[in-house]
């Protein structure tokens, strides 16, 4: 029309960000640790979205994973053990315009923080939760975590752990208002990127469990998966995580799964415990669930004068 092509808009970004603009302190995780992959992916996602660094907040609890805010040049909060999620909910409640990310681990989230986990998922505030699940307490040098496999010999269970591993997927899917549940492995960066990108773009709480390597304490668990990827089940769907051409060859097992189908999602999640088949991809997504942050943020822009006036008015009710 009028000699103007479809891409007619000459969009100009006044500020331009490179990876450097998102890089904080030098990462001090062990060489070969899967956390590096998650960090680099987060950098790339922010760069590709060209988000101003001061508009993002990374919030963590305690653990290897929770060092992440130090390595981001965004705002960040390194909280207390298990409290990453309530802190993040607090931030989102009063600063709804910020882009909130949570970096937490299998200990921080599934053990000491389990109560908060349930309520944060139920609140469905718009944030991205990265669970660095290495199935061990790494920072304190190898103690059993809730997701450690049975019979794993650790410093707390030298003869091998007694219990079956907790299944975070069935738990999360079972929580009311769960709106985005995905699982991914850290050693496939393109898939990790696409998964975190989808999680970041989703409005609501995006729960992403990242099965992650700890080459120092439990090298064997993930080595086994890396050597034999037939235990992984790639979930494919046009509404799911896009899988780049050529990546599928790394997954001998795959299936179609509609992420709006909760019943099948629960079956797939349960198979991880009962059959040892580890799903990779988007299990469930529902964009229609309301976000508590939309409600909790109401009135956050009221001026101090208005607040004082409102308080005075309320107090006047008690005038003698």
């Amino acid at each position, binding site marked *: 029309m009028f000699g103007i092509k479809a891409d007619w808009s000459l969009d100009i970004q006044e500020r331009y960000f490179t990876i*450097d603009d998102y890089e904080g302190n030098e990462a001090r995780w062990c060489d070969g640790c899967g956390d590096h992959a998650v*960090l680099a992916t987060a950098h790339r996602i922010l760069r590709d979205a060209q988000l101003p660094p001061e508009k993002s907040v990374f919030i963590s609890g305690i653990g290897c994973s929770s060092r992440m805010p130090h390595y981001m040049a965004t705002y960040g909060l390194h909280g207390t053990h298990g409290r990453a999620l309530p802190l993040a909910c607090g931030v989102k409640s009063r600063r709804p315009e910020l882009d909130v990310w949570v970096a937490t681990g299998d200990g921080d989230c599934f053990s000491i923080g389990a109560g908060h986990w349930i309520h944060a998922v139920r609140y469905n505030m718009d944030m991205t939760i990265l669970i660095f699940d290495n199935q061990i307490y790494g920072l304190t040098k190898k103690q059993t975590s809730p997701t450690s496999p049975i019979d794993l010999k650790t410093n707390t269970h030298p003869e091998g752990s007694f219990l079956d591993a907790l299944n975070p997927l069935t738990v999360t899917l079972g929580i009311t208002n769960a709106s985005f549940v995905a699982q991914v492995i850290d050693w496939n960066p393109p898939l990790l990127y696409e998964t975190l990108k989808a999680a970041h773009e989703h409005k609501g709480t995006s729960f992403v469990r990242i099965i992650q390597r700890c080459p120092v304490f439990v090298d064997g668990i993930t080595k086994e998966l*890396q050597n034999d990827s037939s235990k992984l089940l790639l979930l494919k769907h046009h509404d799911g995580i896009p899988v780049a051409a050529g990546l599928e060859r790394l997954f001998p097992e795959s299936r179609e799964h509609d992420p709006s189908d909760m019943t099948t999602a629960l079956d797939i999640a349960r198979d991880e415990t009962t059959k040892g088949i580890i799903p990779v991809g988007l299990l469930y997504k529902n964009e229609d669930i309301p976000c508590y942050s939309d409600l909790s943020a109401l009135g956050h822009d009221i001026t101090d004068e208005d607040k004082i006036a409102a308080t005075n008015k309320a107090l006047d009710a008690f005038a003698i």
Partner: protein
Amino acid sequence: MSSSPSLPTLPKTESAPKTEPEILHTLHHFHLGDPSVERDTEEISSDHLPALLNPFRDTSKIRYDYPLVLFANGGESGKHYAQPLTSHLSESIETFSPGKNSARFLKDNISWIEREMRELIEEHNLTQNIEKKSLSNGSNNSTEPLATDILKQAAASLQQHLNLSPENRETLQESLDQLVNSFSQEDRILSYDRYTATKLMIHLVHQRSAERWGKFEKERDSLIRQLTQIIEVEKHKRGDALGTEALEKSVGSNASHFNPAAFSSILPNKSGTIVIPPERMERMDSALKILNQFKRSSIQLYFIHTGDYSVDENKTIKGEVAKDPCSRSADLFDQEAAKLSSLFSACRIAKLEVSNQYSATIHDPWFNNFGWEAFSEQELLLVPAIIALEPANRLAQEGLSSFSQLLGSGRPIQIMSRVKGHANPAATEKSSPFRDFRLELGYIAMAHRQCYVAQSSAARYQHLIQGFIEATEIPRTAIHLINTGVQEQSTIHEEDPHLISPNITKSKKQFLLDPWMVSSAALESRVHPFFRINPESGDTFAERMNFSVNPQPDRDWATHPFSYRDESGDVTHTELAFTFADYALLVPKLRSHFRLIPDNFESDSLSPVAEYLTHNETTRFSLIPFVWTMNRDNVMHRAVVSRELILACRDRLNYWHTLQEIAGVKSPHIEQAINDTTLTIEARKNSEISELKTVHTSELQELQNDATTKVMGQLAQVLMGMNPAAMQGDSTSSRNSSIPQSSSETESSSPAESEESATEDNSEQSETVAASEPAAEVSEDPWIETMLCTTCNDCTNMNPQMFVYNDDKQAYIADPNAGTYAELVEAAEICPSRCIHPGLPLNSSEADLDELIERAAPFNQI
């Protein structure tokens, strides 16, 4: 995260829709041209644009064809003569760094560079204009800025703007330098204005004339060589070569030791028996002299105009002011052609002489009257180009006769004329543009049948250049009718907020819509339809006419989808036509033909212009035509259109229909013919069908009868105890009867042989299958599947020279020679994502290679 531009809205009205007959009455009377109701109506302000054009108010936020890059050596290198800056930039980057992730810093900021370049160009043109004005030499066109200059400046300010880390800065600078190198030193950048088409024409003629003369000079040199040879031979024959002087000359510097006179006296003084007659000798001599002495005039282009444009004269271009450019061009052409006629006749004589075909009785009179009419096509194109720039008003009025004469004469002169979209060139400045039926210069030119006609505009530079190329390629008079869209600046005060768009912060305040946009709208609204007629292509309009580029050429008006939000916030999708009435909104002079319809007024009588025009006289009587307009606040309004403007719409539509018919896009003749043929075919088909049906029914009946008797017969036989197997045998033998025929073709090979050959074939096939199956590919060079790198730092810690992170912080091998093969193998072994492939050792003198190669093997398999 992208914010889509908000949809236009309908105005919010407080009161309920009004349907008062008074309003209807006023609108109707305005439409009919009753001046008494004008004070009861609301005029439209200058920020009202046709609704479809609203998104493009501010052209600085739009990617479009301007500015253009003019390639200095376009024709020679086989490239185009010009290309939009936008596409040249993106295509260049894609050539030197293809793919999404390469040259990322540059690709992410290419829009920034483009905007910066546009601003710099605008600044350049502005300062040039001021300089020219202060020099007051009347020159109103400027030299176009050099592309590399502008790009270098933009690149520098991008670096400053981004303020990247030193490393990234260097990466960006590398790609910027590559981008600069994609332009040649002399490439210039052309912006859109009144003179764009003229400048493009000059650019093109200049390049092409150089190409043509280059060819001709080569031909001339070869003729000179051949003629000289003939004359030399003849001199030898005459014995001149054995004379004292010639001998002395041929000996050279040692001639003093030698007596040429004595030598000459003993040599035979004549050889050969046939001597060239002196007339022929003279002819050749004079031809050779002309060929040798000819110096090409340095002027390649004459530009004749009435004084409203002054070219930048230089050695090759000469401008001239004339009262009647058409007739002056014709005279000038005759003069220039006369200058060249002796050269061309000399060339032709030389050619004839070389092949000894000159016959005095035939050729002498021909060459005595050798004028431009006798020039060959090639020769005509060597005459310096002459461009006559004529105002459309002059061509349509006092200049009509000399214009017509020139078109009929066939002199290869390019006439250029800028035509206004809305005005009748035959009308005077003061009279209403719609008073008479519009005179179509293109149609008049078409009537001359043998000249090239192009109606185009610089808003579609490809169409325009194509027209220029075609017209300058053929030895015919050509007329180019060009619409520029440039309008006189309105007299709004400088301090006023910009009426078209409050966001425009251009240094040059332009209170009207961008001329490129106006010109595009002229094409879109059938005000200035594009066409080219090339008489060289054939004798019929079907061969001659090119009707490309016109939007939706088979319809009356081009229509486009349009969405808006109504009062309740719901989105409505509809289609709007872009008519001549919509175009008229862009012309300040014509705003008086519109009046706003009150926002809350509703009536069935209101009808959009395109629809209104389809009604016949009786049904349209009660209707009031309107157009959708939008003001700068993104709110939609309706404006009633005067009857005078509607009549003009009809006039435009009439010319459009004429062109459609000439172009064969929509021809009533063809439609009629198709209709007739369809009817005939239908009728024939129907009769055939009914015939076949009767045949079919009768055959069916026959078969049914047959089958019944057969079945009954067989049934009776079976029941009577006959052997059913025998019956089957019968049927198989009859079925096999066709087999011998097909086997006879392969008679030569016995069954055994054919079986053997079949197995051979099979084994061969399986072999080829095995060969084509990818044998485990092993790359000899070490490489990293970068996409799979998890940024764990293992390899980069081991050897930071060999393993390096890219922009995405994923590793690649920067220099395979920066470390040992042992390191590569070890890195591959410790790499947690197993994406390092060590390949084969590059240095064969390394220790323990056999063991290392063995260790590397599993990592080289993919």
